């Protein structure tokens, strides 16, 4: 820290934008207490996330740093944007209900060589479709999935459960007490989602009129000689 305030490093810049009046923040030696607090909170968030091994919920950070959780989320979002703008090789993201650092997807090829483990095996189309059905219709039974896909989903459900994407979340109260399946926190992590509410809306993917028409045409009942 050499006090060269001709430079505008991203943190101080961030603080200025969080507190636009910000006289205290632009100047590291400034005395504006509110601004100083914002900068200290941001620094503390950075420090904690650096040692965390799971996404850290905003509520926990809020409790530790004694500011409202909404402020934490707001600061993290701004911090993430500032990292991106500065072109860092890492990102701050909100995943599965918490904040965490991760490598930038741009640099996947380098990181992959370093971690050696490579990317996780991809899911088969069958597994992906089954996963989609579970994600949107959870809790859902094996039989309900079978009726949507027209295929026995047992093997695929076992695979998805073994990889931790889905889990048994309950039992159907009705007769038979079928096992009900739902997605896990791992699922959210693997998809980079914060919560199920972030799934793309299913309504956007209902086939358009052209598809419906094509299917109707393909399946149309021959008029036979029904005029008889």
């Amino acid at each position, binding site marked *: 820290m050499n006090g060269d305030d001709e430079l505008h490093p991203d943190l101080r810049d961030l603080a200025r934008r969080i507190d636009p009046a910000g006289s205290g923040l632009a100047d590291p030696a400034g005395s504006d207490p509110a601004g100083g607090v914002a900068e200290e909170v941001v620094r503390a968030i950075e420090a904690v996330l650096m040692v965390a091994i799971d996404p850290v919920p905003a509520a926990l950070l809020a409790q530790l740093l004694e500011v409202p959780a909404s402020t934490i989320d707001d600061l993290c979002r701004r911090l993430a944007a500032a990292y991106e703008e500065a072109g860092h090789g890492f990102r701050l993201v909100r995943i599965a209900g918490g904040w965490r650092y991760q490598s930038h997807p741009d640099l996947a090829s380098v990181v992959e060589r370093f971690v050696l483990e490579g990317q996780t095996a*991809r899911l088969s189309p069958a597994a992906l479709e089954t996963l989609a059905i579970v994600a949107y219709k959870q809790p859902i039974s094996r039989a309900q999935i079978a009726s949507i896909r027209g295929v026995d989903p047992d093997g695929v459900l076992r695979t998805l459960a073994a990889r931790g994407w889905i889990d048994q979340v309950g039992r159907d109260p009705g007769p038979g007490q079928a096992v009900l399946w739902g997605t896990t926190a791992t699922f959210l992590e693997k998809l980079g989602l914060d919560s199920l509410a972030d799934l793309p809306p299913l309504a956007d993917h209902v086939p358009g009129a052209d598809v419906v028409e094509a*299917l109707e045409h393909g399946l149309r009942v021959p008029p036979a000689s029904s005029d008889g």
Partner: protein
Amino acid sequence: MAVEVSTPVFEGPFDLLLHLILEEKVDLYEISLTRIVDAYLTEIERMQAVDLEVATEFLLIAATLVELKARRLLPGRDDVDVDEELALWEERDLLLARLLECKTFKDVAAVLEGLADLAGRSWPRQAGLEERFLSLAPDPLEGLRPERLRQAFLRATTPRPVAAVDLHHVNPIRLTVAEAVDGLATRLAMVGRATFRALTDEMDDRIEVIVSFLAVLELFKQGFVDLEQFDVFGEIEVVWLGSELVTAFAVDDYEG
């Protein structure tokens, strides 16, 4: 049976039907039924485990298609029964609804795959605590049940899936359409005419009956037999028109 890697593998009857109608623009009304049925049978033969449930689902759909199509192929349909007609429409609408639902999830699955691909290009920070904080942290081994250790060992030693193309061989259905065509042609050439029921009397497997029906349709299409049906859904009479060139009879590639 060599399966080319690039050949799409269909995951079920809906999958295949969607592919045929949407990608191959197959119109059940206008195109040769053999093409659709052929694709179905190829899939059935290709199916990896003899999974009865899947096979049955395929055949139910095949049967619905055959029925939709047969109405056009078969003569003697002037006296259409309104109830039958409505039932067929209902069946078709049900099939349509199921196809639409299946298609919706298929499309959204592709979106989820895109999300997973992107997320898979980032790795999380997992370094954990620096040494100077370690003594403060509760001992993670405290309360670790030996059972969890055993599970971790099993997880670690379970072979990881290896990159492989999933080639599978299954009991083919006992009778292929080509074989059925051969058998029927030989038999009909001798007797001249028979009811479909008589031709399939000894078969106790529904698959074989359907395969035989498809074989009859194929013979009809090629002009080797005529079909007569005096009542709606009544007995189908198969009449041999063919020459003696039975052995030269070529069925276009029914073998899956």
